């Protein structure tokens, strides 16, 4: 295949716009690859990916899993003799890849248009408000009856419907990622592919183990906090919604309440650390924030806060504040989930373990073993 080289193409400009400003400074020494803790285990070259971008080789980048194997510990950016911030270039490339894996084009709008996401948030929030206002039950002011105000059947159905839609979009996006990076399963026995899936994806999804390789350990803990806080909240409010959204008074000894409190604490602390880090800009990973990073973390924080307030008001038996914060929670949680899960930053939770899996598939195809044996 002939390569068409377009230096400073629209493609590389896009990466620069997505945060990879150091791109043009790189003189291809390979320090980033050599310092990366991941390169001990994976046969990757960040330098090569950066070269692809510099040359405008869009297809090469699209089929490349390397950006996903960067967990952004920031060691490369510290050792870069050109201060080209290779870590941030990889971050920008991941943003770019998210926009490319997404087939709807919504992701592209949010990542490249600074106010695109703001419009989307307000639009979706407004729709959520209208729907929840139209479908709300009678407002009981004598005591807090959240189950009456928000009819469980409707909320449950809506929740599951949204979940199915979002999961389907995300799955399509993951399939597109598979098509780009692996192509097909040709040459790999299906059972082998399945065994590898079971071995890799759940483990890395649940533990995010690769992050532990970064010397900056706190980053991993924060990720785990947010992940488990989020997972708990998901279990409580999607499969167990009928138990959690009821008119029963809120009891602290109830295991569901304890789970709810735990989830809230994990999410708030995790998000607070992220926000603090991004404001301080001291650590390499948080030095540069794209507007989508802020969008994710602020929405997550606000969703958690409104969820917490709803719980508090419900426990204290303040009917009206409970209903208001609940509506507010729905207004925030809808854009958060709809936009983040398949289209924006949240999706890296899915892409990351799958990238490790796809990397393994490619290895199986080439018949090579893990490069750590080298």
């Amino acid at each position, binding site marked *: 295949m002939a390569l068409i080289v377009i230096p400073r193409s629209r493609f590389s400009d896009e990466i620069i716009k997505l945060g990879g400003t150091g791109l043009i400074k790189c003189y291809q*020494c390979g320090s980033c690859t050599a310092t990366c803790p991941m390169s001990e285990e994976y046969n990757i070259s960040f330098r090569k990916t950066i070269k692809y971008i510099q040359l405008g080789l869009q297809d090469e980048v699209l089929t490349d899993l390397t950006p996903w194997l960067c967990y952004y510990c920031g060691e490369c950016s510290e050792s870069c003799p050109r201060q080209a911030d290779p870590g941030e270039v990889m971050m920008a490339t991941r943003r770019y890849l998210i926009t490319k894996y997404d087939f709807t084009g919504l992701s592209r709008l949010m990542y490249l248009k600074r106010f695109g996401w703001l419009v989307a948030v307000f639009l979706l929030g407004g729709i959520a408000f209208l729907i929840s206002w139209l479908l709300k039950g009678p407002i009981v002011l004598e005591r807090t009856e959240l189950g009456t105000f928000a009819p469980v059947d409707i909320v449950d159905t809506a929740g599951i419907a949204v979940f199915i839609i979002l999961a389907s979009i995300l799955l399509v996006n993951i399939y597109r990622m598979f098509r780009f990076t692996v192509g097909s399963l040709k040459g790999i026995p299906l059972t082998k592919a399945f065994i590898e899936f079971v071995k890799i994806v759940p483990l890395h999804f649940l533990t995010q183990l690769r992050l532990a390789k970064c010397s900056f350990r706190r980053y991993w803990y924060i990720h785990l906090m947010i992940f488990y806080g989020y997972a708990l909240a998901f279990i409580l409010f999607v499969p167990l919604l009928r138990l959690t959204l009821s008119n029963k008074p809120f009891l602290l000894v109830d295991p569901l309440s304890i789970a709810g409190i735990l989830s809230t604490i994990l999410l708030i602390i995790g998000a607070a650390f992220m926000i603090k880090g991004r404001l301080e800009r001291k650590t390499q990973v948080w030095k540069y924030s794209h507007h989508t990073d802020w969008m994710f973390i602020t929405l997550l924080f606000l969703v958690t806060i409104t969820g917490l307030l709803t719980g508090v008001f419900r426990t204290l038996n303040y009917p009206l504040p409970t209903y208001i914060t609940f509506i507010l929670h729905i207004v925030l949680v809808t854009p958060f989930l709809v936009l983040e899960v398949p289209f924006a930053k949240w999706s890296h939770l899915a892409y990351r373990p799958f990238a490790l899996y796809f990397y393994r598939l490619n290895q199986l195809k080439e018949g090579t073993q893990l*490069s750590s044996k080298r």
Partner: protein
Amino acid sequence: MSKPVLVIGGGIAGIQAALDLAEQGVEVYLVDKNPSIGGRMAQLDKTFPTLDCASCILTPKMASVLRYKNIKLLMCSEVQEVKGSAGNFTCKILKNPTYVDWDKCTGCGTCSDKCPQKVPDEFNLNLTTRKAIYIMFPQAVPRKAVIDAMHCLRLNPPPDLKEKAKGRPLCGVCERICPAKAIDFTQIPKVIELNVAAIIVTTGIELYDPRKIPEYGYGKFQNVYTHLEFERLVSATGPTNGHIIRRSDNKTPKKIAWIQCVGSRDVRFNHYCSTFCCMAATKQAILAKEHIPDVETTIFYMDIRAFGKGFHEFYKRAMDEFGVKYVRGKVVKINEDPKTKNLILTYEDTSVSYVKKDVFDMVVLSVAIRPNRVVPPLPLELDDDGFIKLKDPFLDPVSTTVDGIFVAGVAAGAKDIPDSVSEASAAAMRAALIAKGIEVPLMTAISFRGGKP
């Protein structure tokens, strides 16, 4: 009648400038802070791209400096103050005491043979020791002994010995042994005032301290050297008489690595290119091959800048004729094997795009250069990197921002020996014009048709 010119720095550029001025009948004061002229080039073994012996081409020039009556050498001296303007500079020069009467000293070296005090040898980059009274190096010009007052038992006795001596003068072996009776412990610093027409600055460079780059472990790992240290190591006059042996176990290395751009072309340290290291490393790899025929030599580089005449051919020759290996990729870390003291280098081999780890017996760092400090005492402007700022880097590359002060060699920016020498000649010519006060009558206008313009 011409006025004198002051040349600051007795390296190859300073020597060339002084010689060219002297040839034109201009009186020259050549100032150097060291006891001998020769500068950095005197420390080199061979030169690229011809592999000439550096001493063999430098020493005749150094010696001829002595033959000119109108070159006055001011050794162990430093410029303290410069005032005035082109044609009339007043310079104060601090002449440090040598504690040896150079009019009497014959340079026989008996004193340094007998001196009991061993001191790290700066000329050999502390790879070996010299005595407290010493001749800087065998080919030193002028070949005179000096006493290092800091380390001399008589001049700076250690407190415990001083107490024991109870006021009696200590040691004094050199004073007793000197056949010419040249030792004079009573010398004191002197300030000389000179009136000169022009000044040529050839103050040269020092090496960037590689300890500031902890990843390479220089100073911590014994078998990591700078390129200048390696140059002393291969030199026949060096600490090992030209044998390449490791600091840790005196064994001959079988695998040597050169790491290029250490502290240069790196925005964290110095962003500029030191220009000569590509060729210097190539030369050193060839020298290593000549000294140890079965040695494996690898040069880690980002770009090979073989831009000068014969440079590219030299680089090709290193590869094809001598089998020097070139690997494109920056070494990010050196680890030491604590048992064997071998060095493990981590880098991305960019030709295959993956990370490799390789073990070497010896590592040579091509360390960046830093300009020596000249401001103050000189009233010059410096550029962003600390090199002397040029008036016009294109058409007037030897003039500084001050009229009558010229610059040559690496003080104005990284360059190799031939460029330094040609700059020195150019600067000498400019200085001579001022020193001689020559005014050439100019035609006011030219008409090509013979009529009035």
